[in-house]
């Protein structure tokens, strides 16, 4: 029953990266995301969009790794956005307060506009 997470990184421009996940965000899934995110941060990219369209389940250990990514981004003056969350994943992010420090959008376009500073 492997639910191994796959992450695809897309660079729509030099300032922003999109990480598209497919699968379960648990401890190993979170670490996969962190590996890609930290490689981008090392390269000077600190505005990240996590597109969870193909992720239908998460757990709190995986989310705690997303909080670590958020912490590092904020420390470097960056921004983190999420898009295309299931209602339950969005509700869980609200319960944990993640939405106070990262923005949640229904679709990639408004998320990218916010990351680029084109919208509030």
């Amino acid at each position, binding site marked *: 029953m492997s639910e191994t997470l796959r992450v695809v990184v897309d660079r729509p421009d030099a300032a922003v990266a999109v990480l598209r996940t497919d699968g379960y965000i648990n401890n*190993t899934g979170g670490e996969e995301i962190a590996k890609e995110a930290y490689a981008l941060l090392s390269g000077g990219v600190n505005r990240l969009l996590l597109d969870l369209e193909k992720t239908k389940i998460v757990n709190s250990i995986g989310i705690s*790794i997303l909080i670590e990514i958020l912490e590092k981004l904020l420390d470097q003056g960056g921004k983190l956005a999420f898009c295309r969350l299931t209602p*339950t994943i969005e*509700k*869980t992010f609200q*319960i944990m307060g993640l939405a106070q420090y990262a923005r949640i959008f229904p679709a990639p376009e408004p998320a990218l506009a916010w990351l680029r500073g084109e919208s509030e």
Partner: protein
Amino acid sequence: LKSEELPAAMPESREVHLTIPVAPEMEIAATAQVAALGEWMEMGRDKIDEVKMAVVEACINAFEHSATPDRKVALAFRIGSEDAGRGAYLEVDVTDAGHGFDPTRLRTPEIATALKSSRKRGWGIKIIQSLMDDVRIESGAHGTRIVMRKYR
């Protein structure tokens, strides 16, 4: 039996038991039972997903913290209904034989603190209590039992 005909006291045949080993991703096996029973009782998709999330959290809590000597977690899934107007429900009972904990001493995590601390985990019980309608935690030296209920 149609779901709208759920009797006040459900027969035992509407209770499903599952034992999973303490092993990576076994919690996903438990969510399959939630989906099957939730669909049978015509619970909405979002509510089924919330129960699945709560079950995942209860299982990984047992995996991570119970140190259960038999390396197993037992689950019971029950469909029932209440006369008091709340209607049909799906109840999940997650039990381990580990060393237990004192539920009254649980610290509720806060995101602002987590962002500045090395401790970023410990969200499981808060998530379960937020996603489910009723949650009961019984814990002692011989194990922990979390009973959680979601109404349709």
